């Protein structure tokens, strides 16, 4: 008895319709998702010419009976939905019954499958949507689908395909994403004869992150304690809801210029979602400069009814029923993890990525592929990847070449020293996390027992710690201390304020004037006493304590400008934080200021006591650490 049935028109019409297949990566995505839904534990993907010539995916999932194998190519034929109610709680990655027919209509497709417990397998061949053949064949359990000559019959679409490298980059990015989402499964991605990704199954997400990105990346990542937050049921009929979040986020010192390193999964599905991206940015607010983004790998799990995946034909967008709850949950969990971990920035700081990426989902990892890092095959061909050999019954033996790993965030190239472009590096994977790997334990909690050695350029505090040498930027350190103090005082409504001998009269721009009218009460709460003084002039009579009168004027105009430009839509809370950041910046010890030993001591102790000693309210790092290990390595002692 087959499992697949054709959806009624009534259900089919409820499904977000649109283009399913845009490029090789969309084919890989659909086929990978099918394999996941089929319960496969091992998936092998082979592509040729960036997937334009050939995409082949073989899994060891449940397979299909002969009838199903044929039915699967009908539109709206799916085993994953039976009635309209199911649409409200989708538990599988697929649900439309659209993927296979769409792919089959624009390529030459060959499917080989054998269902669990069936003695023979089935082979189906379709070209441009026309069934060419259907026959019994011996086949291993599972399903293998070969998609050749994508868009051979749609030249207009074919024209829009980008270069082989670009298409390959998208494919690799996709497989990476699914690899991260399912550490317990094995993934192998080959391009021609070279292996791009080889991920044997591992037990934890941490190990999978290590396999994909390497130890260097892992050192900069903070693992979230799995968090759970319940939502009271709105009515008696509803059951109480629960949301779970786990994953990794980067230390604020890791600053990316785009969102490409943010991986969001909802119930195991890779998505792009503005709400979640915003929640993540909010978690890093005041920890990272505004135009920078962290690396994040977030897995949100919740009841299937809570999230509508039937929003977009590509299934990459979702809609949460309780969006703002999810937003706050993600923001708070990530922020708390950052605060608890107090990650110390390593020295030297990781370089900023050189190229701003475009197009999502699209990672830096894949950009490197596009940049040609995998242009030519690098490992000698293994026995399985001999040209022409069918991909049946693949094995996942470790690669023969010496293990090599793709640095996720490689040091900046120094062309003068090393003029040869690194062309032949394969992202070799690591089966196991080696013992003694320095894990991300570089916590700023150890700030409190530093032994200050002195100042560099009267601006940076140099201190010895048990675990290495520290450099602390005195201005931003004090800024962080004051920022938290001002926030606290604002909250308690007792901001200290110093009256000026003579009111400071400042001219306002028209927009500053409007803004002042809007935020005057908040300014007073923060310790200002200002009075409009004729047209477009303001008399400042008192400023927050610690702000020198010399800085008062620029501080006021900064606050009025910032709030106008950035915070017009911002909440009162954002407004206060912005104001506190400006005040702290003005009141903080400046660079080029000699500090005596007692003051340095005081500063370090106060910094250690703050909740976020890793970055200033504008997101600049406060402390760098040169680990003993790094020092030893630099002196060739280890």
């Amino acid at each position, binding site marked *: 008895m087959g499992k697949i049935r054709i959806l009624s028109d009534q259900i089919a019409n409820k499904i977000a319709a649109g283009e399913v297949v845009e490029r090789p990566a969309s084919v890989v995505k659909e086929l990978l998702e099918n394999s996941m839904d089929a319960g496969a534990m091992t998936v092998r993907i082979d592509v040729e010419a960036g997937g334009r010539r050939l995409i082949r995916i073989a899994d060891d999932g449940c397979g299909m009976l002969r009838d199903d194998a044929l039915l699967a190519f009908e539109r709206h034929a799916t085993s994953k939905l039976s009635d309209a109610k199911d649409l409200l709680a989708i538990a599988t990655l697929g649900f439309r019954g659209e993927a296979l027919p769409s792919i089959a209509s624009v390529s030459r497709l060959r499917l080989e499958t054998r269902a669990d417990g069936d003695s023979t397998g089935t082979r189906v061949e379709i070209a441009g949507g026309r069934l060419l053949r259907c026959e019994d064949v011996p086949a291993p359990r599972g399903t293998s689908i070969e998609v050749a000559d994508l868009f051979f019959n749609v030249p207009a679409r074919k024209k829009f395909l980008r270069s082989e490298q670009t298409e390959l980059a998208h494919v690799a990015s996709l497989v990476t994403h699914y690899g991260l989402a399912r550490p317990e499964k094995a993934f192998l991605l080959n391009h021609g004869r070279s292996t791009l990704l080889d991920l044997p199954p591992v037990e934890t997400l941490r190990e999978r992150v290590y396999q994909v990105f390497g130890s260097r990346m892992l050192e900069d990542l903070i693992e979230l304690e799995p968090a759970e937050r319940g939502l009271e049921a709105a009515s008696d009929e509803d059951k109480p809801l629960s949301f779970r979040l786990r994953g990794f986020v980067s230390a604020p010192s890791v600053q990316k210029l785009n969102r490409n390193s943010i991986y969001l999964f909802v119930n195991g599905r890779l998505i792009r979602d503005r709400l979640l991206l915003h929640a993540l940015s909010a978690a890093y607010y005041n920890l990272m400069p505004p135009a920078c983004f962290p690396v994040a790998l977030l897995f949100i799990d919740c009841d299937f009814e809570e999230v509508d995946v039937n929003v977009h034909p590509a299934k990459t967008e979702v809609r949460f029923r309780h969006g703002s709850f999810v937003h706050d949950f993600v923001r708070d969990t990530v922020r708390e993890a950052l605060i608890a971990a107090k990650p110390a920035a390593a020295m030297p700081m990781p370089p900023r990525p050189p190229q701003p990426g475009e197009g999502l989902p699209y990672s830096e990892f894949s950009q490197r592929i596009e940049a040609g890092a995998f242009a030519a095959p690098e490992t000698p061909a293994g026995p399985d990847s001999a040209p022409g050999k069918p991909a049946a019954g693949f094995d996942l033996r470790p690669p023969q070449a010496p293990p090599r790993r793709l640095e996720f965030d490689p040091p900046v190239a120094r062309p003068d020293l090393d003029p040869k472009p690194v062309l032949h590096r394969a992202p070799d994977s690591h089966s196991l996390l080696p013992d003694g790997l320095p894990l991300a334990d570089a916590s700023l909690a150890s700030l409190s027992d530093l032994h200050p050695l002195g100042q560099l350029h009267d601006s940076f505090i140099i201190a010895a710690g048990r675990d290495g040498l520290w450099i602390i930027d005195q201005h931003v350190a004090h800024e962080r201390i004051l920022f938290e*103090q001002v926030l606290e005082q604002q909250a308690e409504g007792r901001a200290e304020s110093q009256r000026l001998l003579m009111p400071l009269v400042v001219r306002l721009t028209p927009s500053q004037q409007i803004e002042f009218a809007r935020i005057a009460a908040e300014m007073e709460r923060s310790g200002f006493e200002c009075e409009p003084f004729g047209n477009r002039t303001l008399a400042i009579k008192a400023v927050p304590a610690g702000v020198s009168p010399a800085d008062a004027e620029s501080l006021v105009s900064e606050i009025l400008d910032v709030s106008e430009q950035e915070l017009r839509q911002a909440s009162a809370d954002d407004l206060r934080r912005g104001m506190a950041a400006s005040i702290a910046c003005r009141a903080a010890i400046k660079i080029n200021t000699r500090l005596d030993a007692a003051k340095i001591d005081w500063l370090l102790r106060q910094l250690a006591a703050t909740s976020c000693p890793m970055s200033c309210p504008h997101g600049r790092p406060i402390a760098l650490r040169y680990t003993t290990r790094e020092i030893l390595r630099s002196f060739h002692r280890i």
Partner: protein
Amino acid sequence: MEFTVSKTDLARELGLSQGVVEKKTTIPILSNVLVEAGDGQVQITATDLELGIRCSCPAKVTKRGSGTIPARRLLDYVRLLPDADLQVKMLDNQWASLVCGRSRTRIAGMSRESYPELPVMPDPMVNIPAGLLSSMIKRTGFAISSEESRFTLNGALLLLKADGIIMVSTDGHRLALTESKLDLPAIGAQFRALLPKKAMVELEKLDSEAAADSVVRFSGDENHLFFDFGQRLLLSRKLTGNFPDFDRVLPKDVPRSVELNRDELRGSLERVSQFADERSRSIRLHVGPGEVKIHSSISDTGESEESVPVDYDGPEMEIGFNAQYLLEFLRAVETGTVSLHFKDPNSAGELRPVGSSTIYRYVVMPMRI
């Protein structure tokens, strides 16, 4: 150039020039002192182009001439020499040779050609008794703001009038004013100038070293101020800018006041402010019948309170202040008793010495805590 000089004399005069020598060697020659040997004396000149100092001491000059020598290196070396005569000779290659007893040293110098010419002092305008300016600087120097802006100046106002000298400084939160009565008929209406903080530091040094009954000849031109101590001359560029109208700031209406023992108040403030916020140093003064209570504002490190007895029966009042501001006055004021004048928690407070003819007013703005 060749001369013999007492090591002690030379070390003392070189010491006085150190504060002026450019520390950041953007212009290398400015880290040197200019040494000139003339009639029976040597002159040592240092400048950072804002400030200049010229000191001299007696010497046996065998050959007139001049040269420049790195200031720091010269002083450090000369200090270590025994108290004896030191023979200095400028060699042809701009090296200076120093011979003292059994020590011989040569220091690489630089040609004097590129050393800046200091402006020439015009005829003195007035004579000011030595020690007067330095005591005025002590009373006002601490209230100068360390940064310059439209609103504050990195220096003090020096005002000479026919009947005395006024010095005023402010950082926008407080203002210190002191006036010394003196007959200066030569001044005419008045002479007004802004004296940079750095010049005040050097002037205080020179003035307190001057012999007790000597005078300072003062003069100024359009851009400079000159203080001539006889053997030593300090000249400074005037600070440009507008000094705030201090008369408007001096409180006119201060209905209440208390007199306090300076050392008691100072001790209490020092102890209590240990528990004040490190940044704002905020404390509260609670004036009540018979006592002024001083307490720290809330802080996570602790709390502290003290009281100083006073003779007061006016209304109770609590005013917040930056303890640091009060302490700086108490450390500068000469009298054992001070008075605090106040009106309400939002108006300026004022501290003055009690029992002295010196005019000294210190206005401090309160804090809202």
